[in-house]
């Protein structure tokens, strides 16, 4: 009748299979990216064009899902209850700004908040999940899951190294994150879809293309124009929101305590 009321001592968090999954996911992602960049397959509609499209789509999506499955069992329950809130905030706050006609896609604000509070693994998981949920309304976002995971991962990394302790550091970290994400996601837009999904961004790509750039570099340049600014704003707003939390709430996250993420900015 007397069952053990105590949990056993913490064992090493990742089992072998999960570690392998994480490695596999990363390898697939990196290998696909390098292959695309170095071979720069021509002809997006004829010949192997559709093969490249399918391959890129599959690789990016599978990599993201492997990373997600590798990370999920590690997340403690308070982080698990936080993630749906972050996912819904992505949707609600993203819509809200959209309604004010500002051409920003701050649909990753929840992901960044999770990265700041719960670390990079949780941030990455949130990014992938955010994409999966969005895909129910817009299936085209699926291959961008890896990019979304990267946003969360970088947010967690930035927080760990003190970018959230000073208000002006957060947008700088966002800028860097935007550059990296733009670069990683450009091959997806190029080889899977042959372009972008919006008229404004499409015009930019067309402009670069008319100046003689290949499609990949045109898309990359467009991404480097819009993504860093967008992510800088997202990181800044996320930092402000995290500052507004009571210490009892932000302090309850082990990641925040261990790496002193908020420094002196935590509300008393």
């Amino acid at each position, binding site marked *: 009748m007397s069952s053990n009321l105590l949990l056993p001592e913490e064992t090493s968090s990742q089992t072998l299979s999960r570690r392998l999954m994480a490695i596999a996911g990363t390898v697939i992602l990196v290998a696909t990216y390098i292959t695309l960049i170095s071979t720069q397959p021509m002809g997006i509609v004829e010949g192997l064009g*559709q093969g490249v499209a*399918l391959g890129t789509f599959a690789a990016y999506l599978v990599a993201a899902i492997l990373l997600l499955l590798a990370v999920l069992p590690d997340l403690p329950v308070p982080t698990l209850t936080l993630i749906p*809130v972050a*996912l819904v*905030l992505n949707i609600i706050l993203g819509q809200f700004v959209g309604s004010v006609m500002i051409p920003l896609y701050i649909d990753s604000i929840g992901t960044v908040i999770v990265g700041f509070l719960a670390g990079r693994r949780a941030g990455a998981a949130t990014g992938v999940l955010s994409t999966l949920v969005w895909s129910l309304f817009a*299936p085209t976002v699926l291959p961008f899951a890896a990019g979304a995971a990267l946003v969360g991962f970088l947010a967690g990394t930035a927080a760990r190294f003190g970018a959230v302790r000073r208000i002006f550091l957060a947008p700088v970290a966002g800028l860097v994150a935007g550059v990296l994400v733009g670069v990683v996601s450009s091959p997806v837009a190029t080889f899977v879809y*042959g372009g972008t999904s919006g008229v404004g961004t499409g*015009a930019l790509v*067309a402009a670069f293309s008319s100046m003689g750039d290949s499609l990949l570099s045109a898309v990359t340049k467009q991404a480097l124009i819009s993504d860093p600014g967008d992510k800088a704003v997202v990181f800044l707003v996320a930092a402000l929101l995290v500052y507004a*939390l009571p210490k009892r709430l932000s302090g309850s996250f082990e990641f925040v305590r261990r790496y002193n993420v908020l420094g002196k900015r935590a509300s008393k």
Partner: protein
Amino acid sequence: MSRTINLHPFTILALAVAVVTLTTAASQWWLSCAVIVLCLLIAGWAGHLKKLAVLSGAILLPTFLSLLLIHGLISRDPSPAMAQWGPLRVTAHGLEVALSLGLRTAVLVVVGLLCGLLVDKHQLVAAIDLSPVPPQLGYLLAATLFLLPQMGHKQRQIGEAQALRRVGTRKGITGWFQRVRLRAVPLVLASMQDAQDRAVHLSARGFPAAGVRTRLRTVPDSSVQRGFRWTALAIAVLGPVLILALTRMGSH
């Protein structure tokens, strides 16, 4: 008026994946159009036609325009131009490329959205819970889907309460910022506090399940459907390879 399909959610998804990959690999405009029309018909039968049309249109219209801009107007291939104004150069080939890419995306969007409309969310979550993936995945999907209307409602309530405070009426960037702060911060605070309060009770009820887990809800399945799913997935992977190999050989 909407009818539901009584298939296992994974069956529908496997079928969708196979259709999308095969259609994309084949890259024949008549096949893509046929698939889209078929999807619209199924949506009509299920009573979701208007939703499917509206949602697809909202995504595809900007995409088509963008592709037109990139490929249709600024085409750099050497074929003779149909029209030319300065840097703009319209060629038949360019338009063909734009249309072809657009159609490819359209198939993905229409099939994907149809899946989303046909699959019952509760059944999908139950199917995920009963599969070998970690229990956290089903939880996160369900929690997000259920939370969305709730938080939307809360956002409206907060909006009302803040409207009573007669603030945020200033014009310009400061007024806008104040309004955003007034709407966003309470939502974030309240929902995150809520998340923290829930966590401990979820743990007390045994979540996440450490070992075997079961569901009260039944997800009807059959060995026929299982076989179908595996076949569909195999086709989804091998089919394109075959088609592309054949196309390659055919063009040599």
